[in-house]
């Protein structure tokens, strides 16, 4: 679910179950063709996917792709602007900014992926359970989620990160925790709306057990809004991780996270514009790309309006 595989169901518009049921034999080919058609009609999303693919590949292959070691200092050329040897310029210790941005991508993308994978599965399961088993246990789960939504996201994330200490994992856990409630709400809402539909009732009267009903009958119908939510959550997770690092609560130096580079770059605005600007541009492009894909998926699959503003803008 983390890197929404757009081949699935792309192009199949607004039917009730867009995900499955391509003929089994050439599912891949059909999927690829559908994806091609979808990408042609959603050009901005296609560009965004392209950008994210390049970004992810360079983050994975960072040691090969990056022109320099991100920690290698060169005190002879500090705070330089872009040049042929340093396309993004250098920082206050003469480290190559492009290399640092490429390595920083590992942190941001990993946080986004981990947060969405865990928060998505936990939230979806909790919501599924809360929607399927109404009454006390379900209500309890949802009240807890409501409480979490009542505290501003960034404040909750900062408190959790501060409680757990500073570093990559505390920040990632904080971002994961605050991403859960949105998934739970969404999953519960779609379970409640499909539960009473005829095809579910008939499956039940045919003797299907609870597990089968929950995971094989109801869940697939809740999947597309959850995937759209996953994209919004991934973008918010990347944003929040950067915000935590910016405040000094995320990955610690010398590790090159984007948020921290921005915070450092801010103190050198007088000497070099590029230091703060470059990580900012890449961070913004990443969030924008994920959002764009999410909106395109939402247009394709329909569904309720998403609150992509939640948890942002602090």
């Amino acid at each position, binding site marked *: 679910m983390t890197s929404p595989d757009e081949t699935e169901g792309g192009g199949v518009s607004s039917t009730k179950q867009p995900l499955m049921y391509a003929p089994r034999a050439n599912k891949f080919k059909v999927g690829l063709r559908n994806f091609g058609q979808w990408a042609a009609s959603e050009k901005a999303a296609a560009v965004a996917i392209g950008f994210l693919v390049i970004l992810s590949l360079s983050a994975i292959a960072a040691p090969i792709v990056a022109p320099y070691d991100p920690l290698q200092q060169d005190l002879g050329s500090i705070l330089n602007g872009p040049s042929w040897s340093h396309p993004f310029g250098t920082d206050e210790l003469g480290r190559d900014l492009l290399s640092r941005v490429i390595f920083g991508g590992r942190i941001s993308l990993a946080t986004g992926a981990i947060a969405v994978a865990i928060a998505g599965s936990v939230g979806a399961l909790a919501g599924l359970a809360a929607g399927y088993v109404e009454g006390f246990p379900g209500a309890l789960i949802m009240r807890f989620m409501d409480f979490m939504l009542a505290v501003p996201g960034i404040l909750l994330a900062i*408190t959790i990160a501060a409680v757990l200490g500073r570093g990559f994992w505390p920040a990632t856990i904080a971002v994961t925790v605050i991403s859960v409630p949105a998934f739970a709400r969404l999953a519960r809402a779609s379970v409640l709306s499909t539960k009473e539909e005829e095809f579910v009732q008939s499956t039940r009267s045919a003797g299907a057990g609870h597990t089968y009903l929950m995971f094989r009958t109801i869940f697939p119908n809740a999947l597309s809004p959850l995937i759209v939510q996953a994209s919004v959550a991934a973008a918010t997770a990347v944003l929040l991780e*950067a915000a935590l690092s910016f405040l000094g609560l995320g990955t610690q130096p010398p590790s090159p996270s984007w948020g921290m580079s921005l915070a450092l770059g*801010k103190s050198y605005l007088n000497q070099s514009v590029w230091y703060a600007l470059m990580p900012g541009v890449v961070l913004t492009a990443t969030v*924008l790309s994920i959002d764009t894909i999410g909106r395109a998926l939402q247009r394709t699959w329909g569904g309720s309006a998403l609150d992509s503003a939640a948890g942002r803008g602090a």
Partner: protein
Amino acid sequence: MLRYLGFRILQLVPILALASVGIFLMIHLVPGDPVLTVTGLEASAEQMARVRHEMGFDRSLFVQYFDWVGRVFSGDLGNSLVSQKPTTELIADRMPATFQLTIATMIIGLSIGIPMGLLSASRQRSWIDKAAATYSSFSLAVPTFVVGIVFILVFGVKLGWLPTASNYIPVWEDPGGALKSTIGPAFTLGFFVSGVIARFVRASMIEVLGLDYIRTGRAKGVGEAKLVYKHAFRAASLPTLTVVGIQFGTFLGGSLVTESVFNYPGIGRLILSAILNRDFVVVQGAVLVVVIIFTLVTLVTDILYSLLNPKIRSG
């Protein structure tokens, strides 16, 4: 109406009770000894035990919680572990700054967001609509600290028009200075808010414009401008009110990131520095105040909503 009001106020009780337990537990599960914040690292075991007893940290969590809540009701949020000042005083010092910033943010956000939403709803699929959609996507995706840094870079460093770090100057004392010191953070947050509002106004306008009474109005020959800006906007402004209320309540709680970028002395910076200093008395008190403010603002928004929309009251 009274019944509705009473019901909504009663609803606050469990929410706030739950929130207070949540905040208390979260803070008290912090690894690390709060006593060390007071005594310093070199304290002897006896010294620490004495301070722990004086501050009541040797009691059970249960007792400590009810002691805290009891004091909260009498308006005592405890003293800061770092500065020894009462938390209420620290919050009261910072609140005017955050209030001024929030008002300025909402003015900027509304004056960009509403016209943009109206224009793009009345000219769907035109270039204006597309430009507005791009604008709001951007405003939601660009992190506030990036907007803030670019703002400082352009207006502070390059043009030299504004200070690179803001201070709180009350608007009634020195309007010009207040504008200079507030515009940076207010623009940063307002840029975000304007995108949220533009998108929301557009969506609710499109919904209203598709309703029967608008069609009837159009058939009767009501001018398009009057139809959009008077009849439809009146109906569409109701749901918009909720979004504005939520944003207002959120920013009244302080914006940790933006206030840090501009060194603006609001509630957000107070909470952030308390968290970094492990001053858990202040964190606990300030976060509780933030949550109370947020819930109250949402309550007021809901009440306003029901006053403007009689359908809700009976329901």
